[in-house]
């Protein structure tokens, strides 16, 4: 049977609002489930699932046609048909919707709390608020069998990383099951967004996940511009891409070094950390902040480049183009390191496809998706770059995807510096109500922001979906059968965000 296209299914629903650039449709419970079946059969990718006080929304991506849409199911009764029971990637978002709004996914397989640890003093903080119940111990999934033992790790970890809990069940050294327990970094971002003016909201968006501050501010600003029906000036688009590529470079270099370090090869970390520091210093010189925080706002960017700053960025390119190939050679020629990375933490391409895993995780397991190419938002429509894809899916593949992406980013930065258009870097905003959505490729994968603005252009509702929502569950699968001692290596090769998905 031929699958109905995305638009065919939801066009039966009524188009609601004036969401740009992709439409939003109201659907009924039957259509909602039809869409879920489309996810299950691989016709569409679930790109986001979030709540509102009286509705649930999901973002769908039609992989074949490249269409994107948002479907809204009103749920005044506080119930909606579970997607997660048909399509597992929806399970955690549904648990989060239940925690935050109180809406019940009917037929859900797993309704344990996800973000709510019983500590907030309130239940359903974004829906009909109820007083908190006494916290009961979290029920980890059972594991039974002879010789199995459990190892509890976190939320405070040995390294300098974010908080989260990992519950391993091991048989000897081999991991039989990993279960993640998160929510420790939940800061209530969506509730804080409510009522904020755009400038403050962009700052908050830039603090959802610190390593992706540029990508988040960019995604938020693009959603805001879509909602307001305006476009940033061309020079702003190019400067934004320059910052986004610098951020990608810095993170990829940090990751490559850290993965090798977790494989017992500290030399690589030392050298990658030098290049990373050079990038942060050049970013500071170019944009006034080492991580380029708060430089991207709705309407454009807050800082411009002069010839002197451009010179510093060109110097950086020279240094990286000289230093990086030596490190690639080092990685490629160190058999003892590859002994750790090759074959470890293999992620099945079928799972990457099912979960719509973005970034290097998806692309190392055969999912050929990059929002910069798929949606070619400016200036990527005018830049030449390749999207590396492999299908071996192990730690080594994720290292190589990063290496290739570093090379692509270096080439992109060179193109941007060569062809940077002139003109203004910011336009004035005219306050108005509106609804916008944006998908941007951060270093970790595609970030989705859905934004509703009120008449005074203050945020009415904002959902920020980190790529990690659809990557973290895959780590549980990829680690199975590996030894406990290889978990840090595998985890680092995923490098998912705790804060970004805890919100």
């Amino acid at each position, binding site marked *: 049977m031929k699958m109905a296209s995305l638009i065919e299914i939801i066009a039966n629903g009524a188009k609601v609002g004036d969401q740009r650039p992709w439409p939003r449709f109201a659907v009924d419970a039957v259509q909602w489930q039809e869409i879920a079946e489309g996810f299950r059969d691989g016709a569409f990718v679930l790109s986001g699932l979030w709540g509102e006080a009286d509705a649930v929304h999901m973002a769908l991506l039609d992989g074949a046609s490249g269409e994107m849409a948002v479907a809204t199911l009103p749920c005044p009764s506080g119930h909606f048909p579970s997607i997660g029971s048909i399509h597992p990637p929806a399970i955690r978002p549904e648990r989060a919707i239940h925690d935050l709004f109180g809406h019940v996914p009917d037929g859900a397989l797993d309704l344990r709390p996800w973000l709510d640890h019983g500590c907030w003093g309130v239940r359903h903080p974004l829906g009909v608020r109820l007083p908190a119940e006494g916290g009961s111990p979290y029920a980890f999934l059972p594991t039974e069998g002879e010789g199995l033992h459990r190892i509890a790790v976190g939320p405070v970890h040995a390294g300098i990383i974010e*908080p989260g809990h990992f519950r391993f069940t091991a048989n000897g050294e081999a991991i039989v099951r990993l279960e993640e327990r998160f929510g420790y970094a*939940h800061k209530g971002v969506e509730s804080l967004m409510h009522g904020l003016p755009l400038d403050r909201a962009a700052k908050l968006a830039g603090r959802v996940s610190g390593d992706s501050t540029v990508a988040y501010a960019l995604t938020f600003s693009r959603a805001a511009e879509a909602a307001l029906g305006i476009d940033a000036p061309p020079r702003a688009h190019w400067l934004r891409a320059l910052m986004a590529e610098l951020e990608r470079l810095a993170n990829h270099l940090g990751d490559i070094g850290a993965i090798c370090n977790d494989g017992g090869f500290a030399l690589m970390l030392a050298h990658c*950390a030098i290049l990373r520091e050079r990038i942060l210093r050049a970013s500071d010189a170019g944009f006034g902040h080492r991580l380029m925080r708060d430089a991207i706002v709705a309407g454009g960017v807050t800082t411009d480049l002069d010839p002197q700053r451009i010179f510093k960025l060109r110097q950086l390119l020279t240094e990286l183009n000289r230093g990086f190939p*030596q490190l690639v050679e080092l990685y490629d020629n160190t058999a003892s390191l590859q002994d750790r990375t090759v074959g470890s933490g293999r992620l099945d391409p079928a799972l990457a496809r099912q979960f719509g895993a973005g970034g290097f995780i998806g692309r190392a397991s055969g999912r050929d998706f990059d929002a910069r190419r798929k949606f070619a938002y400016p200036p990527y429509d005018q830049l030449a770059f390749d999207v590396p894809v492999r299908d071996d899916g192990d730690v080594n593949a994720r290292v190589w995807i990063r290496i290739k992406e570093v090379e692509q980013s270096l080439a992109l930065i060179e193109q941007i510096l060569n062809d940077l258009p002139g003109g203004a870097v910011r336009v004035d905003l005219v306050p108005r109500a509106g609804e916008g959505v944006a998908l941007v490729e951060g270093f970790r994968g595609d970030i989705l922001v859905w934004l509703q603005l009120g008449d005074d252009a203050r945020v009415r509702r904002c959902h920020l979906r980190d790529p990690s929502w659809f990557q973290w569950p895959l780590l549980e699968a990829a680690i199975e059968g590996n030894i406990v001692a290889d978990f840090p290596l595998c985890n680092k090769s995923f490098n998912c965000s705790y804060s970004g998905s805890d919100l």
Partner: protein
Amino acid sequence: MRRLLFQGLVRSPLTERLPVPDDPELAALSRKLDAAAKRRLGRSLSIRAIDAGSCNGCELEINALSNAFYDLERFGLKFVASPRHADVLFVTGPVTKNMREALGRTYRATPDPKWVVAVGDCAIDGGLFAESYAVIGGVAEVIPVDLIIRGCPPRPRDLLNGLLALMEQPRRAASSP
């Protein structure tokens, strides 16, 4: 690898030599830190980083302290994997309600004498997240804080400067939350 290692032998170190000609502040810092660390703990201070709910920005800059430019360990300062090995707790983030218990337990697991540094604007007063139902606020609302280091995130140099300030401060009586 041989070539890289050889280059390491013949090239001058990247570590910013002290005193740094263009930064008298850092030069002064290194001399003072050295003396203070020797006096306090025989030139060794162990730091344990705890993320109590940050966005991860502060962690990036804390990690940068270990790169070749800052090379934290030359001051006798090093990061350790357990609070039981630590003299100093570096706490980042607005403290989320979901992290309150873990932060308190980590503090209690750290032997006396100990110092707590609240790292970054969020750790000082909750930052942009202060008003949330899910956030307690600054670190000082949960455990006693000896020093704050501002910034979003603080630059590695600010972190180094902060550590110096800590070493210069008189030893505070141990206390529990």
